[in-house]
């Protein structure tokens, strides 16, 4: 992949935020495990947070990428009804975030790079999740990911649903697939608040500036991974191949850095985010 592939498209294109929302949620869009299957060898899943339980909405495991060891922590949606229920529609609970943190810290202990895949409508808003400290789990991940002494690569492959996605999102490199979205609130919830009508989600999607192009322009992500044809759902293998190029390049860039440099680079990247004020 050429460097230009990581650049955003030229400005002036028509606003296609809502189309991207639908593509990001497309029923045939590849999910995390579809990429894992295509990108890695010897993937071995690691379960449980050793505190409460094992959350199927986040899949973690050890794998090899072109011979190199890499730890995976990925938000996982289901495809059929049974799988959707099993994965809780990709909405993690505190034990999911705590599992992810545990395996990321395990990887860092042995100097292994970490890949996280973001694809969730959001953290699960339920009684049990609140009881077990959903907010605390997300907050801890944000702080502790900043401390990890090994390379962290984040790819938003579908829906980057607010804090629930960001809880796995503090990386040295953060990429989005071309049709992925990343937002502080879902377009439906936003529409319900500002227009008092969830059916106006289309308008809210545009207002929220949630596309990969928007985030790139706002300086919040490092690059955009192109998708094949009409979108990743049309050719999973080709989509995975494009992710592979980006992952290889990121690993090549980050592997030479010392643990201190990695922590520093990650900190400085997030420190600069949001210089949208006058003084």
């Amino acid at each position, binding site marked *: 992949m050429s460097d230009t592939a990581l650049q955003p498209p030229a400005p002036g294109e028509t606003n296609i935020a809502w189309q991207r929302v639908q593509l990001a949620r497309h029923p045939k869009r590849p999910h995390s495990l579809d990429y894992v299957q295509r990108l890695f060898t010897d993937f071995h899943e690691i379960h449980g947070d050793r505190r409460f339980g094992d959350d199927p909405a986040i899949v973690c495991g050890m794998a090899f990428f072109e011979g190199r060891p890499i730890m995976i922590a990925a938000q996982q949606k289901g495809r059929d009804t049974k799988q959707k229920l099993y994965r809780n529609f990709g909405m993690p609970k505190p034990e999911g975030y705590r599992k992810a943190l545990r395996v990321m810290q395990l990887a860092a202990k042995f100097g292994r790079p970490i890949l996280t895949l973001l694809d969730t409508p959001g953290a699960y808003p339920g*009684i049990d999740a609140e009881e077990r400290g*959903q907010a605390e789990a997300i907050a801890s991940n*944000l*702080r502790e990911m900043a401390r990890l002494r090994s390379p962290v690569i984040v790819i938003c492959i579908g829906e980057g649903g607010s*804090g629930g996605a960001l809880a796995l999102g503090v990386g040295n490199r953060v990429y989005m697939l071309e049709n992925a979205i*990343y937002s502080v609130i879902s377009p439906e919830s936003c529409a319900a608040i500002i227009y008092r009508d969830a059916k106006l989600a289309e308008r809210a999607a545009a*207002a929220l500036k949630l596309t990969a192009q928007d985030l790139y322009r706002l300086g919040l992500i490092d690059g955009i991974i192109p998708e094949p044809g009409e979108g990743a759902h049309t050719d999973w293998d080709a989509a995975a191949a494009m992710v592979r190029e980006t992952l290889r390049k990121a690993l090549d860039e980050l592997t030479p850095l010392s643990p201190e440099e990695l922590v520093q680079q990650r*900190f400085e990247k997030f420190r600069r985010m*949001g210089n*949208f004020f006058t003084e």
Partner: protein
Amino acid sequence: MPWFTRPKPKTETPPAQGERRVRTEGLWLKCEGCRQIIWRKALEQNLHVCPKCGYHFKIDAVTRLRQLLDGDWETYDDSMVSTDPLEFVDAKPYKERLAAMRQATNLNDAVISAGGTLNGRPVYICVLELKFIGGSMGAVVGEKITRAIERAMARRIPLIIVSASGGARMQEGAVSLMQMAKISAALMRLDEARVPYISVLTDPTTGGVTASFAMLGDLNIAEPGALIGFAGPRVIEQTIRQKLPEGFQRSEFLLKNGMLDAVVPRPQLKQFISKALDFFCGPVAA
């Protein structure tokens, strides 16, 4: 339920209740906790805690600073104003909403970043202003709090953040979201520097504020009865399609579930923080 002590003796007697409609409006008010009519002056003298039932009324950021600090304070980064990165428009343009809020609150955004002394000890303290777009966090709140953390770290002065917020600010989209990561990363460095950070959660603290700095204190303490959570109660009700149990997501619920270090009534809050800082840092240098 007098589980707190009145900080100041009553100096005035309330006018007879029958007179209130005839005389001044707003002299009396109804407590949201016990539904009893209380004298405004008595409420103010009791740090805006109902003298009858202990209900904690919401207070603004300046009142909070007055309650926690010894005297005057310095403020930082006051002039910072959002440039509206999304050019967001809802019922009205975000820029106009900001201007109206500035007018109404006399603040440029939803946090006051201050420095002062607490029982003689220098502290930095950030207080979120609920009246400013629900105390929500956009780029300005994110930057001001991050700078306060860095100031605390550089000068090794304890940091206190008092939260009252609906979470990340929708009108600044993903820019707001990333402030959660920015602040949390700065708190990682403060943690490594071993400078104390005390988080005070007040009514309400939800969303991206709870899911970042509000839950990351060396101590996380809350006022009684405060709504604290990640998802708002209405969102949860819509998801699970059932009524939520009484007391769900209130301070006492979080305490029971192991998510808070302590629930501290407002009249004891300053003393609690003071003693905690004594514990962490040793006594104040004379």
